[in-house]
């Protein structure tokens, strides 16, 4: 109940702040000019606030609980992605002054024909990234209130779609910065309080030693939502709905849902199918020979996260709120600091969860550990309060990230896809605004439907795919487009198509085969970036070199690389004016 109140408060607070903020931002340039007086620290908090999603808040701790310390590579990759962004694209992209990735593609490659392709990839990445946010909402509401999975998905999808459609949450810097500090508070305070309460990490033998996770001293009672296939890593004698069930080590049984399953103290926890049973020593190895922690999979994940961050559709526009390239660099260094601060904490939940709530291995709901751990580990008022805090933080994560994504998706649909399908001339502001609203409502439908089907896939895995596709398409386009004068429109297009096809095909094949991570090929199907990124680069370079070498792109290079204040470039106000006369994608006007 307290948790529900906290979720409600965060939701209303976010919507309210957004509605209040948007009143001060009537036009695109008002919004952005106002933002340009924002300091790098505020900007950095806003970028981090929009970036920290369900994957960071719930997914990393859940994956750590399930698979072990190898999940921590993900948080390192998520942070390192901003280093890649800083080193190669932050200042040039700010100086170039594009709001969206399709804008950049069209302007840099001097090719309006490239817009539809870039728009399609934005929709692909955005959809893949929205999916885990909605999944997170589903399991969060389920964990907090016991409501069915679909209610959370539908509620958050509707709230975000309606809110974006009526104009709230339009990337107002202060709202996003506020969201960041809510998330840091909500992840750090319960983690610290729990660590102090238990005097450090409890049950270290199960964490780092030779033991498998076992039921706590008073035994555990679990109720499965539905019948479920379960594996027993050791012989056990448990009670299922009042009847005693004795099984030998290695046995598999289907346990019924809706009845009390009682697991006596010190019994090795049975695990849901798909969850590996690992000793503490295996669990705590960040890299090992096989499975999700094999070096190949780790490197592929690191490539995807390191290079994928710069290609996420909702990140680029945030950099435009920096006054110049110099400030864009300073802001990005601060983002590294803030993300480093946040990512120190999810690991605590994975480790505490393994020691204190091993029943999550049985239910398979490892993604909920951040939400369920406080109440389960510390029954009573304090645990309930801490659980309410993490639940509120999780909702802040879903709302901010999915709103940012939906603004990008709806902008792309209403600005690029729709007019092209209808082949119509430019229309009035009112028509564009109405169209943006319709797009915001419809763009949510497909990810929401997919989220209803994706209940069993880990949040972190889903997000990993979005990063893999971004790293295989927009990352090579940005890196070559910013630093290589000879990148041609044809080359960039061919490379992005090849990268997107390889990455998507691998992911879908891996999904169809199911649980393939044990072999080399299987690992690359699960996380294809190690193959698809070099392939995209190679195709872009090869196709560009085969074309005629006429494009020196000197005007574009001047715009990308010349420092401000030399009178060599159009001032931002002129750019904004040009944009307002034409049409702005990001705010849907």
């Amino acid at each position, binding site marked *: 109940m307290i948790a529900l109140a906290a979720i409600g408060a965060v939701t209303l607070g976010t919507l309210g702040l957004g509605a209040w903020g948007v009143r001060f931002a009537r036009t695109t340039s008002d919004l952005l000019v106002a933002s340009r007086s924002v300091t790098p620290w505020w900007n950095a908090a806003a970028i981090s606030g929009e970036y920290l999603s369900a994957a960071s808040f719930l997914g990393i701790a859940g994956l750590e609980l399930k698979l072990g310390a190898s999940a921590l590579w993900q948080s390192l990759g998520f942070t390192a992605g901003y280093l890649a962004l800083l080193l190669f694209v932050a200042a040039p992209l700010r100086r170039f002054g594009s709001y969206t990735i399709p804008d950049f593609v069209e302007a840099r490659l001097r090719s309006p024909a490239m817009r539809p392709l870039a728009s399609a990839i934005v929709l692909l990445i955005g959809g893949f990234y929205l999916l885990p946010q909605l999944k997170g909402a589903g399991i969060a509401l389920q964990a907090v209130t016991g409501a069915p999975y679909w209610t959370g998905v539908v509620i958050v999808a509707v709230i975000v779609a309606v809110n974006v459609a009526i104009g709230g949450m339009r990337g107002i810097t202060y709202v996003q910065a506020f969201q960041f500090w809510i998330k840091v508070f909500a992840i750090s305070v319960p983690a610290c309080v729990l660590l102090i309460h238990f005097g450090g*990490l409890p049950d270290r033998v199960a964490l780092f030693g030779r033991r498998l996770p076992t039921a706590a001293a008073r035994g555990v009672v679990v109720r499965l939502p539905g019948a479920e296939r379960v594996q027993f890593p050791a012989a056990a004698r448990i009670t299922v709905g009042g009847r005693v069930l004795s099984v030998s080590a290695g046995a598999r049984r289907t346990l019924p849902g809706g009845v009390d399953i009682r697991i006596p103290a010190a019994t090795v926890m049975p695990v849901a199918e798909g969850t590996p049973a690992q000793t503490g020593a295996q669990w705590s190895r960040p*890299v090992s*020979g096989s499975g999700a922690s094999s070096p190949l999979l780790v490197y592929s994940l690191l490539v995807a996260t390191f290079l994928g961050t710069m290609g996420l559709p909702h990140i680029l526009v945030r950099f435009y709120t920096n006054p110049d*390239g110099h400030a864009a660099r300073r802001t990005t*260094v601060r983002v590294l600091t803030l993300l480093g601060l946040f990512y120190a904490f999810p*690991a605590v939940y994975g480790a505490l969860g393994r020691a204190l709530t091993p029943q999550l291995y049985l239910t398979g709901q490892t993604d909920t550990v951040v939400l369920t751990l406080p109440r389960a580990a510390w029954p009573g008022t304090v645990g309930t309060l801490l659980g309410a805090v993490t639940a509120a933080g999780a909702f802040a994560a879903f709302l901010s990230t999915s709103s940012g994504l939906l603004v990008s998706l709806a902008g792309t649909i209403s600005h690029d896809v729709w007019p092209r399908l209808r082949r119509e001339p430019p229309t009035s502001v009112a028509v564009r605004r109405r169209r943006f609203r319709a797009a915001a409502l419809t763009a949510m439908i497909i990810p929401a439907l997919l989220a209803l089907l994706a209940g069993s896939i880990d949040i972190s895995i889903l997000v990993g795919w979005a990063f893999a596709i971004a790293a295989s398409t927009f990352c090579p386009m940005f890196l070559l487009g910013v630093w290589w004068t000879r990148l041609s429109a044809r080359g960039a297009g061919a490379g992005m198509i090849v990268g997107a096809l390889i990455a998507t095909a691998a992911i879908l094949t891996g999904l169809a085969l199911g649980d393939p991570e044990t072999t080399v090929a299987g690992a690359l199907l699960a996380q294809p970036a190690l193959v698809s990124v070099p392939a995209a680069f190679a195709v872009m370079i090869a196709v560009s070199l085969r074309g005629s070498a006429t494009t020196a792109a*000197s005007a574009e*290079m001047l715009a990308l690389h010349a420092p401000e204040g030399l009178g*060599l470039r159009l001032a931002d106000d002129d750019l904004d004016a040009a944009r307002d006369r034409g049409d702005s994608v990001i705010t849907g006007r």
Partner: protein
Amino acid sequence: MSVGDGDRDRLPAPLRSPRQELADSTAHGEVYLRRLRHAQLQLSLLALVAFGAVFGVLPLALYLLPALGRLHLLGVPLTIWIMLVPLSPLFIAIGWLYARRADALDAAFRDLVEK
């Protein structure tokens, strides 16, 4: 590495100022800008190598040295400490040093053009 006086001496003596060359996007202007771009790219690649030398090698090092996991510090394996504590400060340090140098390159270019 930097756009300094040494580099400038090798250009044919400009009759017009670098600013005019750049604004009119003449061949000379392009040479100035290309120098800046190459210097910036070199700096970025240098920072990338520094990053890769530590972070890029780490998964392989942890894979080849499983003994690190048996060393414990305050009851937690050393590998976990390595994953959690020093990397974020490393990223920040590389980022901060890079940003300083990159701004200095921009400033040198600005001096060159405004002179």
